[in-house]
């Protein structure tokens, strides 16, 4: 609205001039549009809140043993007590501190979910990129494999994998690759691997769909005419464009995986002894109506963590200032 003769009289006319852009109606103070777009790039308070929350979770994961909270298997009071000054978040059905459950639980929940998501993204991404880029036979073969994986109910597959590779109450000297591991760790690792396999097909489909779109772009054709090798085209031209969709999908997947990990423990496979958010939620589920704090606090931990991750992922895409051109 810099040119005075273009400023219309009524707000309705103003809307018409702006092509129906309602946001410009609010900016009657005459602030240039360019300044507004730069303001959008400021990080904002939620960015820092998310960073702080994730830092807290990271501290929980790394230094749970050194924090001034009760041990996870320590009975701190009566069972199912609500929050009080002694037990900040109350006690659970065994009289243990819910706060401890949440803090120690971060370790396994986030560990398993992260490893699983990372593994699933790498496997699914590779399958999707190869299928979408090469098409034809490779696509047919890989897509059928993915479809077969999708056809098997996820929980059943995970139960079978973990139950087979890490039977509970197994022997002391279990091995993962070349490392001696305790049965509990072994079970946790296999849970993560099973969940990674579970996450693979969905991510593969997202990656394939995106790759089909992006590899038809003319810049891929341009790279081909230069004589670029296929691997370089995939890594340099296609992957960076496919990654955002894959990442946002995977981040949402973390939430689902935290719950599945709990469900596995509920069924008695994997490590059923330790603490995780999922197990804590499961423990409280039966008493949800009378003692909601047992479910509420672990859920809150999970919710805030996933929200922070998603928010940060979005924000990083914004801040990197890479957009699709609008032509």
């Amino acid at each position: 609205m810099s040119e005075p003769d273009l400023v219309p009289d009524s707000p309705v006319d103003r809307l018409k001039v702006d092509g129906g852009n309602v946001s410009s109606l609010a900016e009657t103070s005459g602030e240039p549009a360019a300044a507004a777009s730069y303001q959008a790039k400021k990080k904002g308070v939620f960015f820092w809140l998310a960073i702080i929350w994730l830092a807290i979770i990271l501290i929980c994961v790394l230094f749970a043993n050194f924090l001034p909270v009760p041990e996870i298997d320590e009975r701190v009071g009566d069972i199912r007590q609500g929050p009080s000054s002694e037990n900040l978040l109350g006690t659970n059905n065994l009289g243990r501190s819910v706060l401890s459950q949440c803090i120690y639980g971060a370790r396994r929940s986030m560990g398993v979910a992260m490893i699983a998501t990372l593994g699933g993204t790498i496997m699914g991404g590779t399958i999707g990129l190869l299928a979408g880029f090469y098409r034809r036979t490779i696509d047919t073969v890989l897509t059928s494999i993915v479809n077969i994986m999708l056809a098997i109910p996820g929980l059943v597959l995970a139960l079978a994998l973990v139950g087979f590779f890490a039977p509970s109450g197994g022997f002391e000297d279990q091995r993962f690759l070349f490392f001696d591991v305790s049965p509990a760790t072994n079970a946790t690792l296999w849970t993560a691997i099973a969940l990674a396999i579970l996450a693979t097909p969905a991510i593969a489909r997202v990656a394939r769909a995106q790759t089909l779109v992006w590899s038809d772009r003319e810049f891929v054709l341009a790279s081909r005419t230069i004589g670029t090798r296929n691997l370089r085209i995939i890594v340099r031209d296609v992957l960076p464009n496919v990654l955002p969709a894959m990442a946002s999908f995977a981040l949402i997947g973390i939430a689902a995986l935290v719950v599945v990990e709990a469900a596995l423990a509920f069924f008695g496979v994997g490590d059923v002894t330790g603490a995780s958010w999922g197990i804590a939620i499961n423990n409280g589920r039966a008493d949800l109506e009378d003692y909601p704090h047992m479910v509420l606090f672990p859920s809150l931990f999970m919710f805030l963590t996933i929200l922070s991750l998603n928010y940060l992922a979005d924000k990083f895409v914004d801040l990197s200032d890479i957009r699709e051109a609008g032509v």
Partner: protein
Amino acid sequence: MAGSGTAHLRGGGALTVEHLTVEFPVGTSGDKVHAVSDVSFDLMKGETLGVVGESGCGKSTTGKAIMRVPPPTSGSVRLGAIDLSTLGADQLRDVRGRLQMIFQDPISSLNPRRTIRDIVAEPLTVRWLDGFPRYPAAQAWDNFTPAMLKLWKNKWLVLLTKIGLGVLLGGVLLYVVASAVGEPDQFGRRDGGAGADLANQIIRGGGLLLAPAAIVGIIGSAIWLLLVFLMIPFKIARSVLVAMEKKEFAKEVDEKVFTALEEVGIPAQVSMTKYPHEFSGGQAQRISIARALVLDPEIIICDEPVSALDVSVQAQVLNLLEDLKASRDISLIFIAHDLAVVKNISDRVVVMYLGKVCEVGQPDLLYSKPRHPYTRALMSAIPVPDPLVDPRSAEEIDGELPSPIHPPSGCRFRTRCARATEICSTAEPEIAEVADGQFVACHHPLDEKDWHLSERSVPVTVSSDLDGLLHSTTPEAPGGVK
């Protein structure tokens, strides 16, 4: 029209395309899209060759086939004396630097996630990386993969596998049937008896027939897996090697990219670190041109480079191409459907219809004295910037473009041609010289008495006063983009 033949080739060109054919399979029915059929033309050094035709006539496919993305079904493309179809992958990579392409959509031809510097430097980077020795595992992969695929597609192996699967299925079926009709024993199990025994043998036989395919598959996969794991340490070693020399290379590239960007009129100093979305269509197209220039090509194929741009920006890009052509001695193949643009920029024009060449000649000749009915129709469709010319006076072609899956017999234009006769459906016209430097593929070429139709004359009913008044403000050249 459907012109075959090579009468219009002059020989000794910078680029010679002979009998170029591109076909794409459609579904599994065995049908093919005949995108380009037997097209020949040549390009002299420093010349601009315009390729025109309506949408879907195979112009762009021709350009891409010359670049071998994808390679043509048959026909030869010779760059100087080198036949591109005879080159191996590595040699082709060397030659590609001499042949570059610019695409239609300027924004889509730049990767939104790379900086302008990286985009323009990419041809140099690819070339530089090729200079490093391929590590043995990758070489083994390159050699092994085609051999393995060939073995897999071996027709005996495929036949054996098919028979094996059939036998196996038959055996299983027989076993089921035999068991179903057998006598139940004391536990209720049914014994198939002799039938089941026979079925077992058949299943065993089927398994034996499948064994070769299984062995090939298992061993092949094992070798592939081994190669993949072997590649990792080699790749790391190579990356270290590349990283060590990267700094020096980057400095050299920066200079070249800077020069190329300045040459196309992009302020290099501020643009190097920007991303494509920060540029307008015209600027993006000039960045594409910079990318094509950075390897110092002899020939640039422009695939409708200005059709996505504003008219004012079109002139900018066209002038830039003209300047580059003069200063660098580049030959251009200019694919477009904007006839006015083609007329202005080209030294020679090829008119295409449904994958075939109709007419070849100097643009002025084609515009004033078209010999092919299709050319005349195209030329009369050029808008004339004169309010006194009735746009409805443009010659129309009836009907739709026929399906390229089942193109018409004989001359491909006959289904829409007013002059078509018996011979047009039976014999395909050969390209022949009808005037000096004008070649046409038509059984009934136009002659002088037909040309007046193509000249969009001013109606005589208008009074001379008004006529003069209007003409004094009318631009002189039709479609003046320059």
